[in-house]
């Protein structure tokens, strides 16, 4: 496991809101976390919890009309949110890049694989001669284990796994520090998914990557991530190392989440269930967002929103249960 030595990305108290016709959706609220050089962080949560918005906002790409209502995103000390457009373009792909959930729809159907690559190179390094660019693309393909003849093909001619590998290649071609993978395997079959995981892990060491893995798949984070941040209703509930989270989950939501997933290695008689559904992000009540579903709810949970507090080295949680114990 890499040492936690240098923070490469720091998100400070980030809030993002979408004004819609019937109100304001608070998709992300007061989220803070750090990402260290070479670290793989898993961002886990169910659909609609704001994890994708958060991922996109790191590239300042959250979809309009969403806007950042507070906080900072510092990449090596520079606030991405206040970067100029020009600097942003440079940063995207070259410092931080992204892989998306659906590899078929993430590739332009009218462009060949090669054109995707060359275009990306061109916009980051216009001076690079075409031959050198081609060579770089060729090398990348080799790394990905894709035949070179595929370069002339269009996305629809490739299989799902192949497309996702092309997506990784495109993300890595400019040699970024950070790669944000938003549900990269959701559309893939299990065996292909496993292959993709292997590839990602090997690339991680080759390119010395920091990874933010956004997923709802606990199995996947367990395999990839060093540290896990659990998100619920736009807020971070718990952040800890992967071992810690699975061994001693603090937050009742995290506990529920882990317990309700069928595990192939264990014989489960009954699954733990969490009744109810996540709150409406438009009119969110005060207090912990999980309170209405929480089996261990106490009065204060419904009145005040708990902050994310460190309870152990590299283990923080936003839950009144533990603050009380301390207090």
């Amino acid at each position, binding site marked *: 496991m890499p040492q936690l030595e240098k923070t490469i990305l720091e998100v400070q108290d980030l809030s993002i809101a979408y004004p819609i016709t019937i109100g304001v959706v608070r998709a992300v609220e007061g989220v803070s976390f750090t990402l260290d050089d070479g670290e793989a962080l898993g961002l886990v949560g169910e659909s609609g919890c704001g994890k994708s918005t958060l991922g996109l906002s790191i590239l300042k790409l959250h979809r309009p009309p969403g806007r950042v209502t507070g906080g900072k995103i510092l990449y090596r000390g520079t606030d991405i949110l206040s970067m100029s457009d020009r600097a942003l373009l440079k940063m*995207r792909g070259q410092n931080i*890049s*992204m892989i*998306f959930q659906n590899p078929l729809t993430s590739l332009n*159907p009218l462009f060949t694989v090669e054109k995707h690559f060359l275009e990306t190179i061109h*916009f980051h390094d216009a001076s690079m001669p075409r031959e050198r660019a081609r060579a770089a693309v060729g090398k990348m393909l080799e790394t990905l284990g894709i035949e070179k003849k595929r370069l002339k093909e269009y996305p629809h001619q490739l299989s799902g796994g192949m497309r996702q590998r092309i997506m990784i290649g495109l993300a890595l071609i400019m040699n970024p520090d950070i790669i944000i993978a938003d549900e990269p395997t959701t559309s893939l079959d299990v065996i292909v998914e496993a292959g993709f995981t292997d590839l990602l892990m090997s690339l991680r060491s080759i390119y010395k990557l920091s990874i933010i893995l956004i997923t709802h798949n606990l199995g996947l984070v367990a395999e990839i991530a060093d540290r896990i941040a659990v998100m619920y209703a736009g807020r971070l509930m718990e952040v800890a190392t992967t071992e810690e989270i699975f061994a001693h989950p603090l937050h009742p939501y995290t506990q529920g989440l882990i317990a309700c997933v069928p595990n192939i290695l264990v014989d489960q008689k009954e699954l733990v269930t969490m009744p109810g559904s996540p709150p409406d992000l438009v009119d969110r009540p005060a207090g912990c967002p999980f309170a209405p579903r929480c089996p261990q709810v106490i009065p204060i949970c419904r009145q005040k929103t708990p902050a994310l507090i460190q309870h152990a080295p590299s283990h923080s949680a936003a839950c009144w249960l533990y603050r009380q114990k301390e207090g």
Partner: protein
Amino acid sequence: MVFVMLTLVFVVLRVMPGDPVSAMLGGHAPEKVIQQKKADLGLNKPIGMQYLDYMGKLAHLDLGESMIFKQKVSQPILEKLPATLELTFFGLLLSLGIGIPLGVFAARRRRSGRDYGARLYANVVYCIPVFWMGLLLQLVFGIFLGWFPIAGRTSPRVEVSAFSKTGFYIVDTLRIGNFAAFGDVMWHLVLPSVTLGIVLSGIFVRLTRANMLDVLKSDYILAARARGVPERRVVYNHGLRNALIPIVTMLGLQFALLLAGAILTESTFSWPGMGRLLLERIYLRDYPVIQGVIVVYTLFVSVISLVVDLLYAAIDPRVKY
């Protein structure tokens, strides 16, 4: 399609009241002569037979002869077709030229002032009757300001017979290098094609906007942005190119609208094209010519949809033939 339309039109024409033979002959014609003419034209046969005769001839690319004027049907059609083609070509060019940029402009900021503005333009323009638009332009630019001619393809002083060969006056005048005449021909094209172009541009604004909105929502746009591709290129190279695919496929249908608009434009601007020919011959009940015009229109539409298909295959790598 040609077959279906022809059959339909054939039936419609045969149940139409009015007798082309007595219309064409003077009031003095004796009954014997009328019957003779009808026999000559095959009008006394049962409709089924007439239909088979006609289809048989058509298979040999023979459109028959006019009943009113003693001419082959192909003759007036070949004379008028170039006029319609010139008009529709420039009309289409203009409507695409206005519609697509405006549609992109609107789609880039959904529900902004400029989006609503462009949509309002599209709706208003679409609801302007072509002929009214033409008349207003005539009134303002032809009558009040006197800048443009309001009718015909050439000025009366331009001797058409001096250059007319293909019937495409633009080509003909350039071919013999008569730039004065070329200017005159272009000059006459302005108001009719602007009329047609503006009225149709509304549709293309709508089409482009809707498709751009769809495309701009797609993942590859986001992915391109995430790779650091500049916005202009994202919109035009990734976005518009993909949005054009559905627009191209719709082009065939828009073409029918264009032709319908062309009829009204031709009638308003006294443009000697197919539309006017059709109207004139409908009044005269000149069946063979009416049928001939319909054949040409249908072929026209079919050819366009073929071209659209080919174009579609050319721009979309997912389509293979």
